[in-house]
């Protein structure tokens, strides 16, 4: 094999690997952020983050970093589905949130709640530090945090939203009953999409410049420069306030950063903020398999020749069959494809060839580019390990083709998959199913490899990531071919003799 397996350490995805302990300037001292704000109890899950972490908060640095990294995960996932419909964003993001930035409902344990709120607040402030300095970073951060805010707002129960809104004290001016009444006729004239036509509905008054997006869609009535905004759109307005105050705060903060640097107060944190994120992922050393310039069409033959591990062949079959791919399915497949050497254009072709839903194509193209690191955060995503695939709750949503089939399939489904995969050996199938029942996915997968690659008799360690499975299979095919050639050559030479 031409390279070693990737170091699971430092991968963004796996929590166990999030250690940066090489840098001793930042280790093992609790991070105390010296902001001026008073200690405050976090009482909402929704937040404008107007209160920085209390200066006396003691938190383990490693945990702190981990929190920040988790938040980056959330923002990244959001970035790659931002153009989807709100319901799709919600579907995609729910599992991501519950994994990285959970808000446990139905719990009375104050400690849990406090910790979750603290994580939310701390990680937000940490990222402020790292994204405040360059205008384009600020813009992206504000965009994503605002999207996150909107998403969470929608996930909150109505009473919680109302309370939050009320306590925010935004002083939005309401139209007087007379004004509202005068507008009622016009409101019903224009079917302001699902605006409440009934009387008594609240209309907020805003300078039109403050709600140009609603204006541009002709969703509000404007009179003499004042827009009358139905309550339905209050989230738009709230989001606007949110991004405005965050932008402002970031600009203010960016001015202070040099000061912080000067007196060394935030050395450790800033260092992380500046360097940590960009370096973390690139540290892994998995190379793109160079000898495979794949076209999307070659996937069929790769599958036929058993080069794809079961998880990937399931994803591929599912794409062909359903002409659709959920975010998680795309995500998992693309990270694999990229590292077996499928160029970006081919990946795009693949999805446009099979994808039916035309409207979605643009989004998909975007998310493909995202995983290839050419748009969005432009990060280099490393191939995923089997462990992280299994642990990713997003992949394990029922009725999806994502994840590891040895981990998330009922045994009858798994059996069908194995037979489709070309395995007939009854005893083998039983053995694999047994491994799978015990969550011994590596063994199950290795057994699958063994059964589908009878000619490969090299001794292998067990499978630990799909790309390794592929490479093993690919290399063995090449070896066999060379062998074959040598054999024919030598037999030819013999014949000539």
């Amino acid at each position: 094999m031409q390279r070693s397996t990737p170091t699971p350490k430092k991968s963004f995805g796996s929590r166990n690997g999030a250690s940066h302990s090489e840098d001793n300037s930042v280790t093992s001292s609790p991070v105390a952020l010296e902001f001026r704000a008073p200690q405050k109890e976090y009482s909402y899950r929704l937040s404008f983050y107007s209160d920085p972490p209390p200066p006396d908060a003691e938190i383990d640095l490693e945990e702190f970093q981990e929190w920040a990294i988790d938040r980056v995960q959330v923002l990244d996932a959001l970035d790659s589905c931002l153009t989807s419909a709100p319901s799709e964003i919600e579907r995609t993001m729910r599992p991501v949130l519950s994994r990285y930035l959970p808000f446990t409902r139905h719990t009375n344990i104050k400690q849990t709640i406090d910790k979750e709120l603290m994580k939310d607040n701390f990680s937000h402030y940490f990222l402020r530090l790292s994204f405040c300095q360059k205008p384009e970073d600020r813009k992206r951060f504000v965009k994503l945090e605002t999207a996150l805010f909107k998403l969470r707002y929608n996930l909150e129960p109505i009473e919680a939203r109302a309370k939050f809104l009320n306590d925010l004290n935004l002083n939005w001016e309401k139209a007087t009953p007379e004004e509202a009444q005068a507008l009622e006729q016009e409101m019903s004239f224009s079917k302001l999409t699902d605006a409440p036509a009934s009387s008594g509905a609240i209309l907020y008054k805003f300078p039109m410049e403050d709600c140009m997006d609603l204006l541009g869609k002709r969703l509000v009535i404007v009179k003499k420069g004042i827009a009358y905004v139905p309550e339905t759109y209050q989230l738009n307005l709230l989001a606007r306030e949110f991004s405005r105050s965050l932008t402002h705060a970031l600009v203010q903060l960016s001015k202070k950063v040099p000061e912080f640097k000067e007196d060394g107060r935030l050395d450790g944190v800033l260092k992380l903020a500046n360097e940590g994120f960009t370096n973390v992922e690139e540290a892994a050393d998995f190379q793109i398999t160079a000898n495979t310039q794949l076209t999307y069409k070659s996937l069929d033959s790769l599958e036929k020749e058993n080069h794809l591990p079961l998880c990937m062949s399931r994803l591929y079959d599912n794409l062909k069959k359903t002409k659709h791919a959920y975010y998680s399915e795309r995500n998992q497949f693309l990270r694999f494809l990229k590292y077996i050497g499928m160029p970006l254009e081919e990946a795009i072709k693949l999805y446009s060839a099979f994808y039916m839903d035309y409207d979605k194509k643009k989004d998909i193209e975007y998310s493909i580019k995202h995983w290839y690191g050419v748009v969005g955060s432009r990060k280099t995503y490393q191939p995923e390990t089997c462990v992280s695939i299994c642990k990713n709750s997003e992949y394990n949503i029922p009725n999806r083709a994502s994840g590891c089939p040895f981990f998330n399939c009922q045994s009858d489904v798994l059996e069908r998959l194995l037979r489709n995969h070309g395995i007939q050996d009854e005893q083998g199938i039983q053995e694999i199913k047994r491994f799978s029942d015990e969550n011994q996915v590596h063994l199950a997968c290795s057994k699958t490899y063994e059964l589908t690659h009878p000619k490969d008799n090299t001794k292998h360690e067990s499978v630990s990531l799909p790309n390794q499975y592929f490479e093993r299979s690919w290399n063995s095919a090449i070896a066999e071919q060379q062998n074959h050639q040598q054999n024919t050559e030598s037999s030819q030479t013999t014949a000539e003799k």
Partner: protein
Amino acid sequence: MDIQKYYETLFPYRQFFLWLNHAAVPTRDFTHREFAFTVLNGQGSDIYVRYQSFPTIETFKRKVAMLTPKRFEIGAVYTAKPSDHKLVSPEKYVAVNKELVFDLDLSDYDSFRTCCQGKQVCLKCWQFVVVAMDVLGAIFDLDFGYKHILWAFSGRRGVHAWVCDTRARSLDDSQRGQLLNYIQVTQKYEKGKLVINRPWHPSVQRSFDICKVKFDQIVLQDQNPWNTHANSSYLLNKLKQVNEALYAKLNEKWQEPSTSREKWMDIDQTAREIAAEGKLDTLGAKVLLETKQDIVLEFLYPKLDTNVSISRQHLLKSPFCVHPDTGNVCVPINPLTSRTFDPTKVPTLATLADSSILEPYLSVFKQFVTELNRSEKRPSSSLDF
């Protein structure tokens, strides 16, 4: 009168300065404002000189005297002096302020006017501009609450609108884009059919009402676009999409010569007939009504060059310039008499021998500028730069 003399003696520099500067002493609104000149070089071809800026109106005037430009344009106010734009880094040279401008040109109406084409203009097709000014004027005033709108003849076959309210000047590009989305009604088509959400937004309804009143005179009578059977295919195609029976009947009927007005009336008449025969249901009748409404809007709704309005960096020809080809002065249009403005009778270099003919236009401009400056409550701190 030659152009040099015009710029020396008649161009209203003082008001021009007050208009753009919003105060009596130079502010950034003037000193950091971009101007561009189009000048003739020795070989007789045009050169376009951008990034000009001036500390005072006198220096501006001297430059004009020196260059004798064919025309000049006004751009945005930047964070640095445009003449210094090469000396500062790009992020320090950003457009911050500019009048919200609109450009309306009759050449965009060519498929809707029969009297003239291309560069020509007459009083008949000018009425398209008049309606457009009415529609936009109502939006500016009633919807957006803008008070300071300078309308100026663009020198040949259109008008420019300069919305000068502080609120409008400080809109950024994306806000301008949204504002244009609000205004634009007739830009979205699907399968040859106009797409406008119904029921209409009250603003669209009002614009339609304005257009509808003028439709008979301007379109059916003056333009008479469907005077022959061959010319009527636009109309027939639309009707075909509504109802085959209606189409068949009218197609037959219109083989005989008739005017556009008669044809327009034929539609409802025939629709009633085929409805009586049970070939047009209520839904069909509704679609027919909407199609007719769409036609009114397609003909008369303002057709705007949106880029000019959206990008603050865009420059626009100044009022009181002389149009290089026609010799027309780009005079402001008096809002009170805009309906009777005659583009074929504006002052030209040739007629300006009698300089008094410029007077009324100068006084319109002066009044506009005075009102604008009265409304600008500029804090004195704006002078410290």
